[in-house]
């Protein structure tokens, strides 16, 4: 479904990714693990068109994505939920969600989208009229995820959903992601910690200094304590 081949990228003179290759198959949940600042986020930004790679190719269902604009990549069905709280702070929760349905096709059925997201996150419905900046950290994360689900998503990319949240809230967020992917949606998720992703990943990539060091079956890799402590500390 998604195939990243030999992608290199960086910011100015600083090269961050050194020829990485990976893939996500249809219906699969893939997790990228690795410490902070080793290129995971950059790879996601390359996939969604925010960063132009210096080399390599990104293909989604056989179509080349490199050189396409972010809005075209969204149109292809790839939804990237970025790291941190990238919500629209001075807009209401409801308007934030509606922006997730910006594309014309999704906009027509935006009411259905709202119902779907509200069913998943009842809290967002309660707070529908509030400004997004008045939400708690966990609610904002749920808003960002809900916004991503308003369109017609086929591959969901989530960048470190646990970042900066309390343990109880992290559990809620991951439970929600698990619920979303249950009906066959493909998932590419980035995290720093192996603990959060146990039981939800099919395959795992371990990333260090802009390269993949290991790739494999989730049950195997996540069970290997020695390996994980080497890479993740």
């Amino acid at each position: 479904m998604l195939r990243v081949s030999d992608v290199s990228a960086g910011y100015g003179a600083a090269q961050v990714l050194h020829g990485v290759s990976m893939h996500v198959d249809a219906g699969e949940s893939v997790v990228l693990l690795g410490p902070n600042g080793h290129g995971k986020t950059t790879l996601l930004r390359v996939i969604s068109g925010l960063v132009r790679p210096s080399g390599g190719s990104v293909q989604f269902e056989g179509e080349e994505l490199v050189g396409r604009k972010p809005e075209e990549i969204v149109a292809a069905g790839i939804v990237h939920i970025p790291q941190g709280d990238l919500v629209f702070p001075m807009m209401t929760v409801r308007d934030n969600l509606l922006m997730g349905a910006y594309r014309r096709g999704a906009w027509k059925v935006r009411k259905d989208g709202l119902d779907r997201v509200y069913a998943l996150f009842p809290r967002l419905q309660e707070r529908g009229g509030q400004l997004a900046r008045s939400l708690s950290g966990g609610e904002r994360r749920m808003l960002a995820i809900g916004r991503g689900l308003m369109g017609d998503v086929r591959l969901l990319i989530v960048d470190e959903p646990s970042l900066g949240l309390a343990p109880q809230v992290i559990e809620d967020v991951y439970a929600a992601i698990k619920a979303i992917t249950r009906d066959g949606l493909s998932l590419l998720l980035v995290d720093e910690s192996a603990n959060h992703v146990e039981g939800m990943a099919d395959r795992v990539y371990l990333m260090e200094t802009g390269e993949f060091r290991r790739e494999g079956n989730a049950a195997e890799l996540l069970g290997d304590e020695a390996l994980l402590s080497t890479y993740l500390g």
Partner: protein
Amino acid sequence: MGQLLQAVWGGLVFGSVYGLMAVGLTLIWGSLNLLNLAHGAIYVAGGYVAYTLMVSLGFSAVFAFAGAMLASAALGLVLYAVVVLPMLGKPGWDNASWIATVAVSLVLESALLLAYGPEVRAMPAAIEGAFVVNDVVFRYQAILVCAVAVVLLVLLHLFLKTSRFGLAIRAVSQQMDASRLVGIPVALVFLIVMGVSASLSGLAGAMLTSILALSPTAGFVPMLKALIVTIFGGLGSVKGTIVAAYVIGLLEAFVQAFAGVAWSLPALFLFIIAVLLVRPQGLFGTPELQRL
């Protein structure tokens, strides 16, 4: 009493026009993070286009105003394509961009000077005449200016609050990356914002120059006042800008009525300095950078 009411009415008229100009400045600031100092030159250009259509070519006022809006929108798009786009996202954008708009403004004013000469022209009113109630003079032109501005400001507000594209404009001004990631075509948003802002400024020029005067540099003072309005309203907040426009318009009218016209600019400057000391983010601004 008559003088007081006359001042209130004058304030509402001025406030309407400042509102038209200032929302444009605010929209551009909010979404592109650009201080557009060519806004005053576009205002004057709108005035001259309307003047040419009405006086030289004999078209009706409606055509003249529509023509002024179209021509200024085109100017805004050219400004975007030729000056803004090549610099967008490059290092030094913060300063280089507004300095470039000063240059554009100089070029535009000089072109108007060459084309029309330096003399001050009187733009005819769209509707001549006035009526008097309780010693307060209501010129039809002033009523027209006020009504058109209020209708456009309300429409703009509704557009930004409820429509798909209006919401997208606000989204871009608040979180650029997130906007890209939900599929908003950011380049198109910039283009529309430049066009709409410029057309509102051009319309303000077409309408106000029949009350004030028309000359190649006549846009500077209205722009300065619109800038004060924009800062007072909380840079980037459309609602704040509209409220601020009427406050500033009323303040100016009162100063003119009771202290003399000479005091109007100094009074506005004193006022904005005081505001910035007490509430630097303006009326409806938030301390963060994204506000629209």
